[in-house]
């Protein structure tokens, strides 16, 4: 049976992890490869590296990261952050990334999704969507959640599927950082209306939240950052917890 995926997310700036991760096991917790490897050994099913570098050297920094991760990890990984062209994606896939995630650039120019899926195949194109619930509507935001757009979550999600995205990474900005649980209703609606897998992001605080997102939330994967980085939940414990509740995990 297809397992539900547990996906730690690492924020990376100038080739270093940020958000003050604190790992006694690691010689260098700022090294995204070392941290990724530790998660992989603990049973993470996949990793997301989100680059927040804002310099001209960005493309090279990202390519170097992809190359290092691909050398050392034997699980799949996604790289995202400021990817906006076929050329950007080509460099990352050539350097060993399994998937890339696009966000603002797809909202700005939706045809990018068609170009990418035609050239590289849907399976490696993840559409990341950040949205906030406002006056009865989920409003899509860009630029790291700082700028609202005139797009609504569900119509945009349908559009990214039609344009060739192979997966959606949905972050609820209302839930992100709260540790009060995922945006279950929105996630379950996305899953019901779409044929592509959904990665849930934003709100994970307890193991129960993961059980909830995989059952009533109908998500295919659950993503989290700080609860893993700060040892609040260990991946082996989480997997055992889910297994005991008959949720298929690896």
């Amino acid at each position: 049976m297809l397992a539900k995926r547990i996906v730690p997310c690492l924020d990376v700036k100038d080739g270093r992890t940020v958000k003050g991760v604190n790992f006694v096991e690691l010689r260098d917790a700022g090294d995204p490869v070392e941290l990724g490897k530790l998660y992989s050994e603990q049973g993470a099913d996949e990793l997301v590296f989100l680059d927040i570098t804002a310099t001209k050297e960005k493309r090279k920094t990202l390519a170097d990261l992809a190359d290092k991760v691909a050398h050392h990890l034997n699980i799949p990984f996604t790289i995202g952050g400021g990817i906006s062209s076929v050329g950007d994606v080509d460099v990352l896939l050539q350097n060993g990334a399994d998937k890339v995630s696009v966000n603002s650039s797809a909202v700005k120019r939706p045809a990018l999704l068609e170009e990418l899926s035609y050239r590289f195949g849907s399976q490696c194109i993840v559409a990341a969507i950040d949205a906030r619930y406002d006056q009865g509507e989920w409003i899509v935001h860009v630029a790291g959640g700082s700028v609202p757009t005139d797009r609504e979550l569900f119509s945009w999600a349908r559009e990214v599927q039609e344009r060739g995205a192979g997966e959606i990474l949905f972050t609820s900005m209302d839930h992100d950082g709260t540790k009060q649980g995922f945006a279950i209703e929105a996630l379950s609606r996305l899953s019901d209306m779409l044929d592509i897998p959904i990665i849930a992001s934003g709100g994970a605080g307890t193991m129960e939240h993961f059980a909830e997102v995989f059952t009533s939330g109908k998500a295919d994967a659950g993503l989290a950052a700080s609860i893993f980085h700060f040892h609040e939940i260990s991946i082996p414990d989480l997997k055992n917890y889910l297994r005991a509740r008959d949720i298929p995990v690896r």
Partner: protein
Amino acid sequence: MSVVVIDYNAGNTRSVFYALQRFGVDAEFTGDPDRIRQAGKVIFPGVGEANTTMYFLRSRGLDQLIPALTQPVLGICLGMQLMCAWSEENDTECMGIFDAKVKRFRPDKGQKVPHMGWNTIYDLDQAMFAAEIEEKHVYFVHSYCVEKTPYTSATCNYISPFSAAMHRDNFYATQFHPEKSGPVGASILKKFLSL
């Protein structure tokens, strides 16, 4: 023993090359026909679209060269699909090493397409898999799959049972990515290298 990983226009051909490096096998990454013919083992990886990839293989004569190889050959993911007779993906005639058809998954009862993530494999052919791999999870990412055939050497059930791996004579293939399947995948690759 020399190992060649076929370098062609498909995506992510490098991952398997890195996987081999991780366990100390210094493979050669090349599209050169002579080097491929002379290799002790050949790995034919790839993700991408069937039609453009077959077009590229034909333009290099690799569509004739690969089926004529006599050393152990391992196709991975799109590599396995191109070793079949035909793919529904843009109505593509493939290499025909396995007399089988590649068809698109139809989404069903909340089961999404692409089939993406870790799934279990069973009914394993001992020539290709150690017994302890039975019911273990491996990593899949694909929208097209090969029906069950007499060459099926591992089965996976997603929407319906399909070929997770195939074997005929010196030709071996996996729909899943052993190079991305953690320690289980590494042991499958090592078993191939020890053939």
